[in-house]
């Protein structure tokens, strides 16, 4: 094996055709990694399922406590539908790309981000692939179950409503990805700031409830400035036939939010200075 032979078939830059293989290998590696510690896996699944159901459980308690209690103008199954969309969106985002946040947190703190920069791929792609966690799809199960139960107690959505829901649900994932980019981007400068998860939870708490319960200006901010309303409220509203103008404004706002998050992440990445001399 000569040097020429060693190097002759090395990849030429980014190879898009290999993206699928990279993704599948990442899933396989992550699955194997999680399976290595079975007790942790079982506990993780149980705790995740229970913690994800806290929001819907509170809704059931509120609506079931006394007659007439609840969110004004919203029936219990409508609120549960919003929360189930929230769970489904998280149920896809966490296994697919939210691991990015831990990846940046861990690698920047330890200096291992340099190994990611040594790969002939976009660092963001590598971090997303390394953060894939197929076991986190269990989050999705609770969401899908509550979604099905809620829909069975509500009038059938129109075809237009279903189409809008599918579109908005894609935007929901885009907003979650943008949040992951913004929060993980800060970790290149605020090294080791484990509070980003609390910040994420804080922001996403607003996504679990009907927008109408918040003051109007705040609701508008949640649709346009930091469009977390797109995570669950707007897609669910489309399915319920209750979509208003705010929902439509949130679409371009989410797209701009995503572009800004990408620019922010790249800008922050360029500030990476390493962990040792």
């Amino acid at each position, binding site marked *: 094996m000569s040097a020429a032979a*060693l190097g002759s078939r*090395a990849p030429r830059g*980014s190879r898009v055709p290999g993206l699928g293989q990279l993704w*599948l290998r990442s899933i396989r590696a992550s699955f194997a*990694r999680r399976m290595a510690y079975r007790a942790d896996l079982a506990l993780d699944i149980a705790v995740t399922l229970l913690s994800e159901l806290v929001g819907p459980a509170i809704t059931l308690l509120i609506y079931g406590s006394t007659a007439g209690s609840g969110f004004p103008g919203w029936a219990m199954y409508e609120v549960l539908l919003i929360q189930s969309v929230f769970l489904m969106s998280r149920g896809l985002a966490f296994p697919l790309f939210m691991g990015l946040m831990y990846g940046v947190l861990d690698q920047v703190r330890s200096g291992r981000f*340099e190994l990611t*920069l040594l790969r*002939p*791929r976009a660092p963001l792609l590598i971090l997303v692939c390394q953060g894939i966690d197929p076991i986190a799809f269990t989050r999705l199960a609770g969401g899908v179950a509550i979604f099905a139960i809620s829909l069975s107690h509500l009038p059938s959505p129109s075809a237009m409503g279903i189409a809008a829901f599918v579109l908005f649900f894609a935007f929901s994932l885009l907003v979650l990805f943008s949040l992951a980019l913004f929060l993980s981007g800060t970790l290149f400068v605020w090294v080791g700031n484990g509070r980003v998860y609390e910040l994420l939870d804080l922001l996403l708490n607003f996504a679990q409830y009907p927008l109408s319960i918040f003051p109007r200006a705040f609701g508008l901010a949640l649709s346009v400035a930091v469009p977390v309303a797109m995570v669950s409220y707007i897609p669910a509203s489309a399915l319920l036939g209750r979509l208003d103008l705010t929902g439509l404004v949130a679409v371009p706002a989410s797209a701009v939010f995503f572009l800004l998050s990408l620019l922010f992440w790249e800008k922050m990445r360029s500030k990476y*200075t390493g962990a040792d001399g």
Partner: protein
Amino acid sequence: MSAKMQIEIRSLRKNYATYRRGSGFAEIAKSVFAREKILVEALKDIDVSVEEGELLGFLGPNGAGKSTCLKILTGVLFPTSGQVEVMGYCPWKQRKKYVGRIGAVFGQKSQLIFDIPPLDSFLMNQAIYGVPKADFDARLDELSSLLDVRDIMGQPTRNLSLGERMKCEFIMAMLHGPRIVFLDEPTIGLDVIAKERIRDFILAMNRKGVTFILTTHDLADVEFLARRVIVINHGSVIFDKGIGSLRDHFGSRKRIRLLSEGGQDALSLDGLKATDRRSENEVFYDLDLSACPIDRFIAKANEVLRIRDISIGSIPIEEIVKGLYSAAMPEREGALP
């Protein structure tokens, strides 16, 4: 630039800012609001050229600028000013294209996925680098047999010994067929057998034309592997010559152990300096050959002593390198050997 030149570094400078604060409570509290900023000149006008197929030792004390230089060469950091061209690429401007053609092994940063077998990590790298299956299989076959790790590639990485893990790190770094491999402390913590295996592997790959840039504090690695040595200190290159020149850097000298029947006080010659008196009869000397050739020393020793045993060897490279490091530290006057 010569056709065989692989790395060209010209006037490379890197400055970065860091912060200083004291350890007292008041100083810690103050640092929350205002920190004292310090500008560090990590690299000062570095000029280095490396030819294809070289095996270069890159030395320097902690904080000398080695890691910074290595990070710039691997495209991880960009410099404040200066030019770097490696295989025709500017590492930090053409990072994605460039890093597909280099490899790196870090003794203290594992590229393997800890919880799963090395083979799974190799397959991940195959996907990341887009290595065709036939090439991947052939290289894995050759590398695993050279390093004798076929039987352990299927065991979880966390269950492997440090030596086994390091061998797998080398496979990780070589599977995509890099032309240049950067090694940062590749034998740290390894036992003598594992070190020997790794060194043999590096030499075998080098014979096939792979260029190695070796950064280490283990000077035995340098002695065994490197044909050329660059020493960097305080951000500047203070030595850049062959390993033979390094040995003679402070003059051509020999280390002599002399065991005699009686005391050795009578033995006195120009250029002869006793460095360690183990006993009346056993003394270690450093002999400056420019002042006193070895035959004259032996003749004189025979004349004034009854020699029971004698061994003549080179000055240990550790002492020479220590001298180089000290020579570049003006605050440590008198530290020259």
